């Protein structure tokens, strides 16, 4: 119906006509409403069951802790029937391209019962190669009904490095690692041993990744069984009719929300400092959102083109996450969830990059893009848009044990989280993973230390990191890890020094991310922008994750709330005076006269940003007080 649901990636410049909205009035179709509503319960339950099965039986932390996977059923035309809830958000509704590509390649009659496929190729999937998709065709009574699909992050796919992926410095997919292009691994239930050996020989931890692959296929088979039960009970025609009706429902729900947003054209911009290779040229994020009735267009054509660093990807994740969060955050996802959205993005955009552009850090920019889209709409729906969050993928720390002893893991990692933007009605949450990560959890200190010879010296909230405002941005974290053996640290943080997590409506930006490395004990920590650092025994890495932006004028924050923040240690005595104009001591005792003086003078930092949403007009610079568009 739109450029998006037909074929977002291969349709060339996706500027085809607007959504017709034809199904806005579509009724429940031919299936009876009760069966449709039963299907509404049962379909997402299948994807969720596949997910819990995968998570509990997988071997790698990226799956069971970081939950870097998704499980789904897709129709014979690649339409999304259901996807699991939780896990990382940036996989939302992005498996259709993989299945449509498979159908193009093999033909609908090219699949056999108990076949199994594996693919991670960037020509189609457009993510780092660690994200490996397995899928199986689901046959019921000899007829192909749909596909059961699982994407999961493997701990290693060969290439230059291991763990979270190759990183942004890798120049092309061959350096990045093993590429699998729609490989039929199981032929009618029989595994191709030669392919299996080829995979095993080209990755570093074959027992782990092949274990994950077994778990992925087991989850696919589980999905097959559940679909067979469902179709067996209700019949294929009823199944298909119900699915169509559910798509129409999902679309209608979204349209109702968008229809309440004032029509208009809204813009915002932000930037990532660089792509890790071309360090002088920011990665520009220019967003235009057009609301017209119940239709929304998110136009990303103003964003940077493909870059030499691996920040590229082929993904609609950012606009999809923003749209989902705005419309129906609590509803299950299916193909109808995005039919009323049009995304304009051209081939060659850094988020619609062409193979073989490097994509090793494909998701790095996405949280910032989501924030930019949301901020664009702040003037339209001011009480529903929070200030910017930390905007990075959680601030990850990886330790690579170059010579693991028996019982020690070669790689351990944790995603640390950071501050979220203040809300139009309250302070931002602290120490939480990004908008792209959902149910991703940090690794417990005790787990890290049981697995690897490291000591986590501290994991604590970072005072003063939350942007000041009537409502304060959430706090980032300070995490410090010491190695007890020689090894390698990776501390990944998105370079956003030029464009801090911005505030809205006079709120100030959150603190920037910072990384320090102490290579050997006794030496001074050195601030670094380098992702990877070798450390001797006793060496340390210290990661400070960003805070969220503030919302509203800090001088309007009630004195009592500022004093309480000082007592808790979230805000320092100095910052209370500087940003909030509150004179208070560490015990929370407020100097009323001094406070009145400071507040009357406008404090020192809150001045110019105090007025409304800067540039609230349709084509303005966005509503950001400080930070947005600062590059």
């Amino acid at each position, binding site marked *: 119906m739109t450029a998006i649901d037909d074929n977002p990636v291969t349709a060339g410049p996706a500027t085809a006509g607007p959504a017709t909205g034809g199904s806005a009035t579509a009724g429940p179709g031919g299936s009876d*409403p009760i069966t449709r509503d*039963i299907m509404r319960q049962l379909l997402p339950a299948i994807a969720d069951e596949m997910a*819990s099965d995968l998570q509990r039986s997988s071997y790698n932390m990226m799956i*069971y802790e970081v939950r870097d996977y998704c499980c789904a059923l897709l129709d014979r035309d690649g339409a999304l029937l259901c996807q699991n809830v939780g896990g990382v958000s940036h996989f939302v509704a992005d498996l259709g391209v993989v299945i449509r590509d498979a159908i193009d390649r093999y033909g609908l009659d090219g699949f056999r019962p108990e076949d199994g496929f594996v693919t991670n190729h960037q020509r189609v999937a457009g993510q780092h190669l660690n994200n490996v998709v397995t899928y199986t065709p689901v046959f019921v009574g000899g007829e192909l009904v749909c596909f059961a699909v699982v994407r999961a992050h493997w701990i290693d796919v060969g290439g230059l490095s291991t763990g979270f992926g190759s990183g942004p410095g890798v120049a092309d997919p061959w350096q990045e690692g093993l590429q699998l292009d729609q490989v039929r691994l199981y032929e009618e239930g029989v595994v191709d041993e030669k392919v299996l050996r080829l995979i095993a020989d080209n990755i570093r931890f074959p027992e782990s990744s092949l274990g994950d692959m077994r778990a992925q296929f087991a989850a696919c088979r589980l999905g097959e069984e559940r679909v067979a039960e469902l179709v067996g009970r209700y019949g294929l025609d009823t199944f298909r009719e119900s699915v169509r009706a559910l798509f129409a429902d999902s679309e209608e729900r979204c349209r109702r929300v968008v229809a309440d947003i004032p029509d208009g054209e809204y813009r915002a911009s932000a930037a990532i400092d660089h792509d890790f290779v071309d360090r002088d040229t920011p990665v520009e994020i220019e967003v235009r959102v057009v609301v017209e009735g119940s239709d929304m267009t998110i136009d990303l054509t103003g964003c940077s083109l493909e870059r030499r660093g691996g920040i590229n990807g082929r993904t609609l994740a950012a606009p999809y996450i923003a749209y989902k969060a705005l419309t129906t*955050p609590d509803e299950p996802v299916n193909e109808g969830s995005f039919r009323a959205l049009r995304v304009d993005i051209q081939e060659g955009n850094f988020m619609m990059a062409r193979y073989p552009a490097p994509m090793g850090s494909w998701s790095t920019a996405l949280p910032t893009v989501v924030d930019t889209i949301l901020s664009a709409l702040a003037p339209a729906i001011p009480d529903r848009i929070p200030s910017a969050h930390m905007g990075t993928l959680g601030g990850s720390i990886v330790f690579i044990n170059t010579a693991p002893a028996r019982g020690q893991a070669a790689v351990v990692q944790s995603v640390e989280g950071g501050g979220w933007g203040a809300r139009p009605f309250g302070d931002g949450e602290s120490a939480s993973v990004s908008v792209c990560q959902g149910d991703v959890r940090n690794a417990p200190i005790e787990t890290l230390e049981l697995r690897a010879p490291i*000591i986590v010296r*501290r*994991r*604590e909230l970072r005072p003063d990191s939350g942007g000041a405002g009537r409502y304060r941005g959430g706090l980032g974290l300070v995490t410090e890890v010491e190695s007890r053996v020689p090894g390698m640290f990776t501390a990944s943080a998105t370079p956003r020094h030029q464009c801090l997590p911005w505030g809205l409506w006079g709120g100030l930006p959150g603190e920037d991310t910072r990384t320090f490395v102490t290579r050997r004990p006794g030496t001074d920590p050195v601030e670094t922008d380098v992702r990877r650092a070798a450390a001797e025994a006793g060496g340390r890495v210290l990661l400070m994750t960003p805070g969220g932006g503030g919302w509203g004028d800090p001088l309007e924050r009630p004195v009592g709330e500022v004093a309480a923040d000082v007592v808790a240690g*979230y805000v320092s005595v100095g910052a209370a005076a500087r940003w909030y104009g509150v004179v208070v001591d560490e015990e929370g005792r407020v100097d009323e006269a001094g406070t009145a003086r400071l507040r009357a003078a406008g404090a020192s930092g809150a001045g110019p940003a105090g007025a409304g949403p800067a540039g609230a007009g349709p084509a303005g610079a966005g509503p950001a007080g400080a930070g947005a568009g600062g590059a």
Partner: protein
Amino acid sequence: MGIIAALDIGGTFTDLVYWDTVAGRGGDAKSATTPKDLSIGIVNCLTKAGLAAGELTDFVHGSTVAINTVLERTGAVTALVVTEGTRDVYAIGRGNRPDAYNIFFRRPRPLVPRERTFEVAERLAADGTVLTELTDEAVEAVVDAVARSGAEAVAVCLLHSYADERHEARLGAALAERLPDRYVSLSHAILREYREYERASTTVLNCYVGPRVSEYLEQLEELLEGRGFSGRLLIMQSNGGVMSPAIAKRVPVAMMESGPVGGIAAAATLGRRLGYEQLIAFDMGGTTAKASLVTDGEPAISHGYFIGGYAEGHPLMLPVVDVVEVGTGGGSIARVDEVGALRVGPQSAGGDPGPICYGWGGKEPTVTDANLVLGRLGAGRFLGGEMPLDVEAAAEGIRRQVAEPLGIGLGEAAEGIVEIALTAMALAVRAVSVERGYDPRGFAMVAFGGAGGLHACAIARDLHIPTVIVPTFPGHFSAVGMLESDVRHDHVRTIYADLDGLDWERLEQIVDDLLAEGRGRLVEEGIEPASMVLEVDLDLRYEGQEFSLPTRVERDELAGRDAGALKARFGAEHQRRFRHSASEEAVEVVNARVVARGRRPGLELRVAGEEGEALTGTRPVVIDRGGTPVDVPVYWRPRLAEGQVVVGPAIVEEYASTTVLLPGDEMVRAASGELVISIGGTDR
């Protein structure tokens, strides 16, 4: 033995069930819960039942006092003492946002604020070796800080205290000496398992509820003693067992879910008595339905859950009966949403205002209203006829609010409401069985709660469960379970080692320590050695996995050091649960666990029957989806004779519950009073 009584205080009602083991008879009483002074409800129940406290030998008590303290946030002013560098670990938690697209998510709100969280200079490594000594000065400084903070309770959670408890113990001793009136919990004594956030949360919860629960239990003891009670008081726990009040005061967090688990424990006992070892307990009340699994006669246990839900709740990692709960009860509201989808629950009309048909002011149609319109519930038979139901009003509500918006007939709408509720409940039953790797075709379902019998046969048929059992006292089944539950204590210790390179002597030492702890608890409970049962599990997993599977071992077999046998047993369990295993993979031991049980005698509960003809008439009932009402025979359960057979379709009514038999179902009244139903269309 003499008279055993169990008292279950719920949100609305206080239930009492008793059994006289000498006379072989028992009874029950119900009274409104009196939140301001719970003792009034207790005394009312005893009086109603005609019981004197002095004649009771055992008094078992389940209470929501602990969970309510957390949910209402009315617990003690609590301080938390942690290792240097980890002051914020409790507030940071795991950093996750389970509602992935909700940009206004809420993280759990800590029960201890940052300003009452104190660091102490000390540090252990993962193997328990000391990296930073705990000095006297450090102890003194932190005890001073706690004293100044005004805390009534103090939780201590140091890194790696599961590996070595000495630092925590020293702090505990210092706190006890300097601040003897404070309630102190040490994390290794509450949960000796790795993962510092979850252990801290569990320990904080214990402190937070500790003072209030202790006071409550003391009042209860005084009340009972004042009325002449000299028997044994036992407290229901979340793990399906009971414990003494003395232990409950130390580990009150163990009684957090003491209400709902009683029925599951009762189902397990009932199954053992009737010869069904593999059961699904299904409990449907006014606001929710709950499903749990019983295997080999024991309720399935989950090692932890989240109070207040996964997204925003507090982790509590003590063993709890594994319950999957869905928001569909008799009072669940059916509505057609803005795009024309029919939704049932989780909003519930509850008991106030209740379903439309109660006539108490409820305006929104509920599952109960739908069952009434379909004839499955009898208008004149509710609560034995004490409370007539308004069919017309129920029909009007469904017609206006469901049938017309959907453009379907009244019968179809009522049927749809029930079907959607059934689907949600079937998913819950499946979650505890199929999704745990168990085939429900080998199980019997025990259905209880006010609305369990109305829906059980339909769910069983859906999942090919061959047998449904409706117990006696289905409305008080939770209290029944408390009458018979064993004393139970769980002990755990993190080990974390490769099975292949295992230090077996260390493992044996740890297991022996745990067994000694367990035996010590049972001795403290006054359990005779002959009634003690101790079981050992090792939590095993493939190297690199996070979730482990408890694998049963015998203490004596550890001496044989047969890693291969353990691995094979684990592999088989992994295969059953996840459909794959990997015999060549390395296996890790994560935790050792000991379950210490003190068996209590089983009871032959029977209810006295009534004279007269059980078949009371017929009424029109919609049985099939889209079908028209057919005349169906209606039976009065108390008059069913032993061995009497009833063939579906049929309705069996009793005081507070109704059982619906579908065509092809065949029910027999067991000698001990239960209704045992063979489900049509399944392999029996």
